[in-house]
């Protein structure tokens, strides 16, 4: 579904992604694990067209999307839930969802958008309760739900999630991860999940990649990564203390 070949991304002179290659198959949940500053968000932003890679190729479903603008890439079926949620705070929850469907036009689109909004409310009932409320007034967990639902409203083939557990209480984190697993099981959505919370991510993912200072160091099934000694020592051993918002 998604294939990255030898991606190199720079911020000015800083070489952040170094020859990153990876692939994500249809219907998989793939995790990307790495410490703070390893280049995880940069990788997602490179896929999403927020930053352009200096070299390498990205293809999605067989078509080359390297260098496409961010809004084109959404039209190609790749939708990102950015780090820190980045919802439209001064707009209502419903408006956030409607804007998520911004690029869906054409005959019958309005009906399908309404159906999908109903589906989002079913997945996150609390968003239904708060649909008229300004998104910025919601709790962190609810805002993360808005961010995920907004990204899903473009009806993506591939969903990119950047640290959905960041700053959330463990209960909310489980709720969000269960929703992600349900997406794959019921809607066959392919998910690329970026996490510092390695244990949680690998629990739900089929496969994973480990990134360190911009290089992919390990890859394999979640089982393999959970049992790999070096991965255990660096990312699973002593869990970092969760940081609350």
């Amino acid at each position, binding site marked *: 579904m998604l294939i990255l070949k030898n991606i190199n991304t720079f911020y000015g002179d800083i070489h952040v992604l170094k020859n990153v290659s990876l692939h994500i198959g249809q219907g998989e949940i793939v995790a990307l694990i790495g410490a703070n500053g390893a280049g995880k968000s940069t990788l997602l932003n490179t896929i*999403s*067209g*927020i930053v352009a890679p200096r070299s390498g190729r990205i293809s999605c479903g067989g078509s080359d999307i390297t260098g496409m*603008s*961010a*809004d084109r890439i*959404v*039209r190609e079926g790749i*939708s*990102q839930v*950015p780090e820190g949620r*980045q*919802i*439209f*705070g*001064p*707009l209502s929850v419903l*408006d956030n969802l*409607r*804007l*998520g469907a*911004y*690029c869906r036009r054409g005959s019958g689109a309005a009906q399908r958008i309404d159906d999908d909004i109903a589906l989002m409310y079913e997945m996150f009932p609390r968003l239904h309760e708060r649909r008229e409320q300004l998104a910025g007034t919601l709790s962190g967990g609810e805002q993360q739900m808005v961010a995920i639902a*907004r*990204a899903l*409203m*473009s009806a993506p083939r591939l969903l990119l999630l950047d640290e959905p557990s960041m700053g959330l209480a463990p209960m909310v984190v489980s709720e969000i991860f269960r929703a992600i697993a349900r997406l794959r099981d019921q809607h066959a959505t392919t998910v690329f999940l970026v996490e510092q919370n390695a244990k949680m991510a690998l629990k739900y993912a089929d496969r994973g990649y480990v990134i360190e200072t911009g290089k992919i160091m390990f890859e394999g099934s979640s089982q393999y990564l959970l049992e790999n000694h070096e991965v255990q020592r660096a990312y699973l051993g002593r869990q970092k203390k969760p940081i609350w918002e």
Partner: protein
Amino acid sequence: MSLLSQIIQFLFTGLTIGSIYAMVGLGFNIIYNATGIINFAQGEFVMLGGMVMVWLTTAFNLPLPAGFLLSVLIVTCIGAAFERLAIFPLKKPPVLILIIITLAGSIIFKGAAMLLWGKQTYSLPHFSGEEPLHLLGATILPQALWIIGILMAVVALLAFFFNFTIPGKAMRACSVNPVAASLVGINVKRIVLLSFAMSAGIGAAAGIAFTPIVLMEFDRGALLGLKGFCAAVLGGLGNGTGAVIAGLLIGVLESFGAGFISSEYKDAIALGVLLIVLLVRPSGLMGSREAARLKEF
């Protein structure tokens, strides 16, 4: 003239000119919200609106409604073309560079208007005659009501656009967070184009309505732009309601100042009020966090 009728007279004069400032201020805000740019060519759109209308109605004898719509359309296209030629081609330009570009744009618009129409002053017929209405001893030109009415129409249209249409909400999303907006598939550059087109159109409407009362010439844009900028900043940069209130306030204060003190101080009043308010409330009357974005440059 009794004091009451004087007050009513000055109030209406102030609201009339204030409506123009408010519309220019709204134009500043629309572009500022979409891009973070202070568009110093904003006043030129007002001038162009008046001049194009004069040209259309004299050269082609267009009737008023057709001339009005066509002039607004032409200036809207000029605003859009300005964005496509001067702003769009730049890759990730710093905001300060963009502001300087709009300054250059204002000089070019002014120069072009001088070349096309010369330095003379032009007038337009009033929309519905010059027979004044009388209210408690004050005389009010019908054109003043037209101007205030056009402001109200612009405000209503903008309120509808930003609150009830997807493009309007997309524009708000861009001003909240352009990266997130592009991640939902909004073409941010197209929103920037739209913001320039809309601001130019609103400016033009103001200019067309204003010309019958004050006449128009090629170099009127700068001062109108400055007053509109005062309205935008005084209201809280980026805040539409603020710009309207502040624009009307500046207009009324100017009018009372000119009437009761001296018309020589008219222009100083707007800047004086602006300075005092900004000393007390740096974010403007209605502004909050938005004004903090100014610190970007």
